[in-house]
């Protein structure tokens, strides 16, 4: 497996021998070769291995964090509890209120930590790609969030949820011909689709940019002979560093937005109609 990772790293940052040109990264980045269990439905490539690794790390993190809970947290505990508090106060209680916030808190915390953990691997040195940059994981989380807000609405207003969301009250009835298809499309189709695409595209584009800058640096410094263009490598290196910091920010922001939007959709489903 180490050979596969090293091979991948070298082929990504050094161009094929005898070619001489610069190859910008393409979508093939996101479909790396299969390293384990080839031929079975459980074939694992580098991205799946990263996802499994992050899953194990998250489980370990939560287990260790909750091992010895005291009423007054120690210094280490309060650092570890900071993200949990953030999700609870700024996202769950802020949008849903205390009672519903407490009820949907496990879902929101899970979504936040899984998204954040998978996003962060795009800047970690030997992993270098986000677990959420291929569409599978964001799709699963968006489907879960979709089922959650439909379930919440159906449970709270059994008969009236579909009626109120497709035929919003207070609209003169001829307009329902236009409004209802738009409402249906916007509420039941567009919400999970945009959740998925927003997360996938942000992580995909961030990864492509980082690979572009670092492979361009390699190309300018080492691939082509020392000439007038070599100094461009310095520029692309600086941009690479700047975009790594930006990617870190985007990883955290996308996790926050996914969780916040799930909470907002839940709140809209649970809202009392006048």
């Amino acid at each position, binding site marked *: 497996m180490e050979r596969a990772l090293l091979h991948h790293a070298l082929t990504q940052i050094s161009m094929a021998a005898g070619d001489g040109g610069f190859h910008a990264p393409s979508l093939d980045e996101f479909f790396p070769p299969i390293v384990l269990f080839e031929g079975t439905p459980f074939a694992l490539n580098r991205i799946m291995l990263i996802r499994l690794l992050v899953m194990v790390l998250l489980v370990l993190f939560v287990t260790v964090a909750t091992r010895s809970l005291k009423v007054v947290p120690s210094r280490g505990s309060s650092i570890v509890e900071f993200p949990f508090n953030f999700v609870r106060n*700024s996202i769950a209680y802020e949008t849903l209120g205390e009672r519903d916030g407490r009820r949907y808190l496990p879902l929101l915390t899970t979504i936040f930590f899984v998204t954040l953990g998978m996003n962060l691997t795009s800047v970690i040195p030997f992993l270098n790609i986000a677990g959420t940059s291929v569409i599978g994981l964001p799709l699963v989380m968006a489907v879960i969030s979709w089922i959650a807000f439909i379930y919440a609405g159906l449970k709270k207003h059994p008969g009236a949820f579909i009626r109120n969301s497709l035929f919003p009250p207070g609209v003169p009835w001829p307009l329902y011909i236009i409004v209802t298809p738009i409402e249906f499309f916007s509420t039941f189709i567009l919400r999970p689709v*945009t959740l998925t*695409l*927003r997360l996938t*595209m942000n992580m995909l584009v961030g990864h492509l940019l980082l690979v572009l800058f670092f492979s361009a640096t390699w190309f300018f410094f080492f691939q082509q002979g020392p000439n007038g263009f070599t100094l461009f490598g310095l520029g692309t290196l600086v941009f690479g560093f700047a975009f790594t910091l930006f990617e870190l920010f985007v990883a955290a922001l996308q996790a926050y*937005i996914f969780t*916040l939007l799930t909470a*907002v959709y839940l709140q809209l489903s649970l809202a009392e109609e006048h």
Partner: protein
Amino acid sequence: MDITTLAALNGNIATVGYGLAAIGPGIGVGIVVGKAIEGISRQPELQGRLTTQMFIGIAFTEALALIGIATGFIFR
């Protein structure tokens, strides 16, 4: 009579399509965030609620930009 090609463009028109598709959401998100900043500057104590509303507004206006990126991949 032979046709002489004087100039040719090649590539994928999906990139031009996405560029056009990004104009609307770009302006829209700018307006949403600008209004949110204006509201926060008028009443700083409502910052938390206005920021949340801003993110909701961004989610809706950004939807079309995201569909624009995706159609480049769908209609290859």
